[in-house]
């Protein structure tokens, strides 16, 4: 290590200039970054739900809906229908629009005394005139389940225009254009813009807002805490510089690699603030504590010491994040794992090379001794803490044991209740829109069920109808439309009842009339060997989704003779949820094992490794227990906290134990070594905990609820793992020493 620290000092200028150069080069590529908040943008290619979802997008005229709601006292007026026509007409041929369904152009199959109408619900060139005609239309529309509660609310105060987007289009861009074009019409009625693309856009806006407002504020707060702790400008500048540069490098590489900022990768800067700052704080603190007379020799000693713990601390943290790569359902999670690891690696490099190079090039003019003897509040506090731990180690262990008991119980109450609507605050306009559209129209999430077989075979049609009927039994599912419905209605107007005809020839005859209808593009494949049931799901609650999808899958299993598959937003959400939880639980396990091995290797002892991970285990118990007790669910954001707590928690333990080993070299007495370790590492730990927890608590002001929860949980995790390393870890070490079970810490022979 001394050789490396020699190199750092010898090439200090080269290091500084190279860092600046790389920062400028990578910083340039940040301009290529753009935010893509769509969680489902890159679905796995080997998952059948994802494959079918993409196929619906490509072959059935699109898979995402933009829903425009028009609210009025009474929908059934000429004025409102004119507005529906204007919107429908102006959006129909827009780029990215696959198809549109509104009251103006919805297919209607009507039987009358004189014949049959397979056409549109209303004649857009000849809208009803008299009040009676409007009343008749209202009664007709509200009497048909095809329209009531799906295109028109039951109270006739709202209607929707369902715009189906083509597959492989920039959904958010198309959604924005749809809104702009609709708003340009300057219509008097109240309009709502709902559906996934608008919702994703809203989340994107919130991310941008948070990044630009909360990010800098969080940074300022950390600056304040650092200044308050170190009482020196360089104590502030160095960690901040490391963080800033590592963020620039990470986002620069992302820009260079063409990787987009997702809802998850948007928190990388915040993570780097938390984790990256710790490395510099430890390096800086160690140098501050070591360098007394000669800058270069002191720096060499300090660096030779701190390199190992910082390297291992970053290595274990990287392990924690790399575990995200394995088994994640959506690409953004593995991307998050890769780039957070890269960011941590950069932060580690910068802390170990750039920070000391800067300190060596611009040495402090103040006398180190003066400040050390000044006896700050922090040192006094740590002194007291040590005295207490030394005196009552058993009490400390017992107190911790008592603390974790309720949390242990809480773990079993942890919920997986993920609701995407919960992502936005209650007063967010998009959340309100989704709520209104769900209440009035039954929801906005598309569900697609594919039924394989000859679409003109009466038996297949009956299976389609039976599946659709089964789906409609779920209270949250509405608007199930299939080709079978059209055949039933046609058969009805031919005077043979609302059912699928048994005679294939009759089906073929009816098909003659139906073929070529625009809506069929969404309902049957061109080869007529596959039908698609389109429906809307009205809940974003994972429990509701689980009940529906699991129930439907069981139904499908029973229908062994016919191939039925389900996809859509609820299915994807469920997949995502299940895969996140299982893969993250697994990666949490992998992370703990890897960290344990790394720490044991560092300490050259499995026992020490075990003791080092105790604060993490306790932190995890408290974290998940707290989530169970407070009702914070395990979701896409909160599930990350576990791995982060391992990454950060182990850092504190590593610093404490490495320091302990180091002190033992000189004093040979464990008690003395613990005292010094608490003072030196303790200071860094407390500063780090304070800075970062406050930085993360700023996230409570985020407009994205998962980020709020994330901020709160990371803060609690930091405090818990910090306190664990400062109290529980030394208390256990003292107890082991006192019980003389073994001579735990031996002076290392030089």
């Amino acid at each position, binding site marked *: 290590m001394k050789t490396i620290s020699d190199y750092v000092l010898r090439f200090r200028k080269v290091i500084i200039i190279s860092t600046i150069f790389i920062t400028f080069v990578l910083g340039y590529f940040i301009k290529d970054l753009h935010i893509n908040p769509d969680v489902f943008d890159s679905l796995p290619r080997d998952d059948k739900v994802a494959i079918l979802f993409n196929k619906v997008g490509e072959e059935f005229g699109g898979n995402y809906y933009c829903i425009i709601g028009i609210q009025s006292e009474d929908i059934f007026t000429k004025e409102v229908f004119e507005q529906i026509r204007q919107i429908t*007409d102006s959006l*129909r*041929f827009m780029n990215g629009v696959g198809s549109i369904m509104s009251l103006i152009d919805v297919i209607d199959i*009507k039987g009358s005394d*004189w*014949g*049959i*109408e*397979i*056409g*549109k619900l209303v*004649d857009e*060139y*000849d809208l009803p005139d008299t009040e009676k005609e409007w009343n008749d239309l209202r009664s007709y529309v509200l009497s048909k389940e095809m329209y009531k509660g799906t295109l028109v609310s039951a109270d006739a105060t709202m209607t929707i225009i369902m715009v189906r987007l083509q597959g492989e289009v920039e959904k958010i861009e198309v959604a924005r254009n749809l809104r702009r074009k609709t708003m340009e019409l300057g219509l008097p009625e109240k309009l709502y813009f709902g559906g996934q693309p608008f919702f994703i856009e809203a989340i994107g806006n919130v991310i941008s807002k948070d990044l630009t407002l909360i990010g800098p504020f969080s940074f300022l707060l950390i600056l304040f805490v650092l200044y308050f702790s170190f009482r020196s400008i360089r104590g502030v500048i160095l960690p901040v510089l490391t963080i800033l540069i590592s963020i620039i490098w990470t986002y620069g590489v992302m820009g260079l690699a063409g990787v987009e900022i997702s809802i998850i990768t948007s928190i990388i800067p915040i993570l780097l603030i938390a984790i990256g700052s710790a490395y510099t704080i430890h390096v800086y603190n160690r140098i501050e504590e070591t360098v007394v007379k000669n800058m270069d020799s002191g720096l060499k000693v300090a660096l030779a010491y701190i390199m190992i713990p910082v390297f291992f601390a970053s290595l274990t943290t990287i392990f924690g994040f790399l575990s995200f790569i394995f088994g994640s359902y959506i690409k953004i999670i593995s991307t998050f794992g890769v780039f957070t690891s890269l960011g941590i690696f950069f932060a580690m490099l910068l802390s170990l090379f750039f920070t000391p190079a800067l300190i060596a090039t611009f040495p402090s003019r103040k006398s180190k001794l003066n400040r050390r003897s000044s006896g700050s509040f922090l040192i006094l506090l740590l002194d007291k803490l040590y005295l207490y731990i030394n005196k009552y180690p058993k009490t400390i262990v017992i107190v911790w044991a008592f603390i974790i008991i309720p949390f242990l119980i809480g773990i079993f109450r942890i919920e997986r209740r993920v609701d995407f609507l919960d992502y936005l605050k209650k007063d967010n306009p998009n959340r309100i829109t989704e709520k209104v559209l769900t209440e009035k129209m039954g929801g906005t999430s598309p569900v697609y069920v594919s039924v394989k077989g000859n679409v*003109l075979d009466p038996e297949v049609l009956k299976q389609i109808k039976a599946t659709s009927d089964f789906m409609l039994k779920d209270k949250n599912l509405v608007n199930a439309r299939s080709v079978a419905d059209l055949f039933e209605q046609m058969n009805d*107007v*031919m*005077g*043979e009842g609302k059912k699928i005809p048994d*005679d*294939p*020839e*009759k089906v*073929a*005859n*009816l098909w*003659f*009339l139906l*073929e*070529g*209808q*625009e809506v069929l*593009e969404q309902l049957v494949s*061109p*080869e007529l060997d596959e039908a698609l049931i389109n429906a809307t799901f009205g809940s974003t609650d994972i429990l509701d989704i689980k009940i529906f999808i699991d129930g439907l899958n069981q139904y499908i299993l029973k229908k062994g003779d016919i191939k039925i598959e389900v996809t859509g937003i609820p299915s994807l959400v469920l997949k995502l949820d299940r895969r996140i939880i299982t893969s993250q639980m697994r990666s949490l396990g992998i992370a703990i094992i890897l960290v344990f091995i790394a720490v044991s290797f560092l300490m050259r002892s499995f026992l020490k490794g075990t003791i080092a991970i105790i604060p993490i285990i306790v932190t995890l118990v408290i974290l998940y227990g707290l989530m169970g007790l407070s009702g914070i669910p395990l979701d896409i954001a909160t599930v990350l906290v576990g791995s982060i707590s391992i990454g950060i928690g182990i850092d504190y333990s590593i610093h404490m134990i490495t320091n302990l080993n180091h002190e033992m070299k000189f004093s040979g007495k464990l008690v003395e070594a613990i005292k010094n370790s608490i003072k030196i590492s303790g200071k860094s730990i407390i500063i780090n905990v304070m800075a970062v927890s406050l930085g993360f608590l700023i996230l409570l002001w985020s407009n994205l609820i998962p980020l709020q929860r994330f901020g709160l949980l990371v803060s609690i995790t930091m405090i818990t793992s910090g306190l664990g390393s400062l109290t529980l870890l030394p208390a256990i070490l003292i107890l082991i020493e006192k019980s003389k079970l073994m001579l735990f810490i031996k002076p290392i022979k030089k």
Partner: protein
Amino acid sequence: MKMNKKKIQSLLILTAFMFSLFSSAQSASEILEKMDEVMYASKDQKSVTTIVLTDRNGKTRERKAITMQKGRHMRLTRFTAPASQAGIGFLSLPGEVMYVYLPAFKKERRIATHVKNQNFAGTDFTYEDMEAKPYSEKYIPELKETLSDQYVLVLKPKPGIRSDYAWLVLYVDRNNFYMKRVEYFNRAGIKAKELVSTFEQKQGYWTPVVMEMTDLRKQHKTRMIMTEISFDNNFSDEEFTVRKLKQ
């Protein structure tokens, strides 16, 4: 004097311009009417139509029908293949009256007029495209260009005519006044469909032998091939009744 000369010049230019406009409007109408005359020249006609549908992947399906037409407003189409659709009949009568007959149900049903913008039996022709109604009755023509071999007309629906198209661009053969090509523009001003026809002179009448309609958005094509064409068969009006349709 100078002023007067200028005024006279301007007046002359204006008159010439107005005259040219007027004459072009006149000739556009004449061209369209002539085209209608050519298309509906025979008293009646009968043909076997093979309909080939080609989807965007190049996959084709084939149908066959016998079409009978009398005058400008009566047309009966009876499908003969595929077997599942054999016997299905389609009758178009004056006054935008349309009937369909479904043999499996042994029932006929009248089809509402405002379904005209719907595609006809899976083809790329809408009921509007298929209706037996002369162009000059539906559209106001404007001569856009006169090329060496064809006239290019822009047709806009007459007031009160329901059409899904904002305008059509029609290419008419200059010598024989048959329709060579039609481009259909939707209300957004986008070219939505294109019809290319091949006309041949049979028994003295210029008649389409191949008509190919392409839906540019769907990339779907319908090719109608007319064979066994006969003219002036002396069909009686009786042949174009619901009773006949049901037979």
